């Protein structure tokens, strides 16, 4: 019966010790638990705990005040514990020094020293079992706590690293998002959140993500969305299999490019036109001088010819000057209209006269279609003539050389809106790409850079035409299909 009592006692101690250790989160908690258990057996004056740190040096991590031995005095006992790897009682002054190492796989993790005031003869054999248990069990718990701390530390380090990289990514202007295969958003940086991408943008990103998963490659795209230019780029991350999409608003860059180009074109335009002034001016000057120097000797026919040339060159000069004025008016928006009543059909016929050479050169046929005998409208005759001329010459210039028959026609008819006449210039030329529709009226705009080299022109025609029609409060209607042809129309009020 006595041995059963000993086992009961042992089990009680073990269970309360386990309970104490269960809540232990720090090393010191474990030592507190040990001390609590030890106090059940021993009359303990004070405690001291030494632990081995990473550099294999020993240091005191806990020492009760009044503990009789100094750190240096304790070191030989640490050596003893390390050597024996078991607990000992050592006589010290009036009491005993309990040396209790905690063990993990034969390694001494720490040494707990207790100064006991018991009469040594009171020690029981069963206490040894308890001490042995504490020695091994707490070693295990301490080791686990150490590992737990290591995991926590590494988690902190990882957290710090993550923050560091997040900060870096957040400081970028590019909006970065990472997507998984089922198009779920996995990661975003601050720029992405700030950019607050709308459905359209997200749609484009998702398309790119799908594309990247399909072709397993980097993909890039530049897209204009609601007046902003965006540059998209994708990178496959590999592991995990996710796609990183970077998005940048390059509107400013684009705008700058456009302004630079505009400036360049303007400079070229001015220098070209200045140069063109010289040619007719030189001719006028030369003929005028000849007439002055040999006025008496000139026969009538030659004189007439010379005068004609001077007149022609003057007209040419005037036209150049008008173009220059148009340009500056366009720049300043200072165009003024001289309103009068005139017949649109007449104007078209006038234009037809002026484009004969061009029609021959480009091998384009021209026709006028109308059921009306006359279409008298109110407006600036010269300007409207200019508009018709621009539309028609464009229709000829942007012919489709691939087609066997090339034509351009002007149709004049009553508008659906009452009291108006609509003029349309229709061709079977190359057409205008859908996305360029709203650009063709910009100054110096050329749909395709390759066209710049194949089609002559200042790039001002349509811009000037739009300005003129705007002044007339007339809308320009453009219908075009790439490869099929275009139609430019405008309506003017009938003269009363």
């Amino acid at each position, binding site marked *: 019966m006595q041995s059963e009592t000993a086992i009961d006692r042992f089990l009680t101690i073990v269970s309360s010790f386990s309970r104490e250790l269960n809540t232990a989160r720090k090393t010191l908690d474990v030592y507190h638990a040990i001390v609590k258990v030890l106090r059940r057996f021993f009359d303990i004056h004070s405690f001291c705990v030494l632990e081995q740190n990473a550099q294999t040096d020993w240091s005191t991590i806990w020492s009760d005040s009044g503990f009789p031995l100094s750190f240096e005095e304790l070191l*030989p006992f640490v050596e003893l514990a390390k050597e024996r790897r078991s607990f*000992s009682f*050592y006589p010290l002054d009036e009491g005993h020094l309990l040396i209790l190492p905690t063990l993990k796989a034969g390694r001494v993790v720490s040494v707990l020293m207790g100064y006991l005031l018991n009469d040594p*003869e*009171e020690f*029981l054999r069963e206490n*040894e079992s308890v001490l042995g*248990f504490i020695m091994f069990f707490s070693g295990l718990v301490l080791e686990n706590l150490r590992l737990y701390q290591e995991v926590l530390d590494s988690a902190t380090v990882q957290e710090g690293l993550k923050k560091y990289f997040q900060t870096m990514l957040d400081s970028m202007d590019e909006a970065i998002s990472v997507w998984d295969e089922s198009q779920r958003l996995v990661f975003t940086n601050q720029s992405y959140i700030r950019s607050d991408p709308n459905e359209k943008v997200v749609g484009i990103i998702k398309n790119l993500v799908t594309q990247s998963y399909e072709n397993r490659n980097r993909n890039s795209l530049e897209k204009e969305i609601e007046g902003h230019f965006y540059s998209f780029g994708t990178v496959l991350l590999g592991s995990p299999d996710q796609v990183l999409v970077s998005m940048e608003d390059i509107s400013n860059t684009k705008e700058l490019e456009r302004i630079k180009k505009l400036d360049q074109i303007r400079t070229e335009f001015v220098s070209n036109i200045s140069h063109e002034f010289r040619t007719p001016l030189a001719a006028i000057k030369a003929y005028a001088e000849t007439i002055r120097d040999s006025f008496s000797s000139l026969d009538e026919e030659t004189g007439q010819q010379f005068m004609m040339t001077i007149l022609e060159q003057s007209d040419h000069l005037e036209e150049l000057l008008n173009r220059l004025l148009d340009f500056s008016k366009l720049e300043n928006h200072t165009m003024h209209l001289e309103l009068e009543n005139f017949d649109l059909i007449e104007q078209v016929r006038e234009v037809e006269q002026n484009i004969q050479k061009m029609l021959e050169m480009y091998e384009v046929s021209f026709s006028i279609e109308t059921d009306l005998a006359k279409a008298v409208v109110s407006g600036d005759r010269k300007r409207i003539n200019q508009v018709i001329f621009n539309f028609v010459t464009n229709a000829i210039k942007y012919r489709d050389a691939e087609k066997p028959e090339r034509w351009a026609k002007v149709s004049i008819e009553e508008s659906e809106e009452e009291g108006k006449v609509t003029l349309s210039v229709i061709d079977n030329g190359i057409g205008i790409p859908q996305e360029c529709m709203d650009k063709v009226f910009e100054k110096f705009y050329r749909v395709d850079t390759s066209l710049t080299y194949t089609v002559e022109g200042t790039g001002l025609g349509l811009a000037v035409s739009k300005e003129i029609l705007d002044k007339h409060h007339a809308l320009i209607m453009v219908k075009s299909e790439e490869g099929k042809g275009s139609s430019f129309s405008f309506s003017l009020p009938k003269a009363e």
Partner: protein
Amino acid sequence: MDLKKSVQQIDSLPSPDFILKKIVDTASSTSASAKELNDIVSKDSGFVSKLLKLANSSYYGLPKKVSKLTEAIMILGFKTVRNMALSIFANEQLFSFKSEELELRELWIHSLSVATIGETIADRIGFSNKEELFLCGLLHDIGKTVQGILFPLLFDAIVKVSRMKGWTYYRTEKELGVPTHEQFAEMLLEKWNFPELVSLAATRHHRTDDFGSSVYTDVVLSLRLPRISPSGLNMATTGRARRFWSNTIFGKNLASPR
């Protein structure tokens, strides 16, 4: 050979010294106090001096000499005192039995090797019952000693056959149909009333597949580890510990083979 007859023969074996037996019993009892152990040990002056010698040995490296028996017991602990008492008894009464034919000294070295290797392994793998493993290792082959002392011819025959056939000692016993050393150990330890742990180690170390409900299962199982090759390990692994035990307790170097 009749096992019954050999039981009577066992009576002729030296009984453990009364005081030693009492020391073992007291040191093994859970309810024993240091005072009780102290009272018993103090009756054997030879044992007292050995205890003091051990406590003051360089192995323990104590800063101050221990002169009181109580202090020595406190430093060494109950289990060490018990192991020491049993070691002394085994060495003095059993293994130093004079016999021309037998190589009991080698058997002693084997036992001591198993004991120290067992203790070392227990220490390394964090098995808290290392003193128990030492004790079991030391006495696990006590049956063979009994065979050797009581029936030297039988012992000699088993050794010779096992060497010739390349069988283990245990298998040779089985093949020859003689009472095994486990059976001898069982009878002896029953007679001496030794702790259950020791008797399990001595009587069941070849039949480790069934211990019933004994709580000492893992101790005896652990004993198999050092027995795998104690002769190969003993010099390298346990030389120091073995020399320590031999020199300190027995005053002579028993570790080096003849």
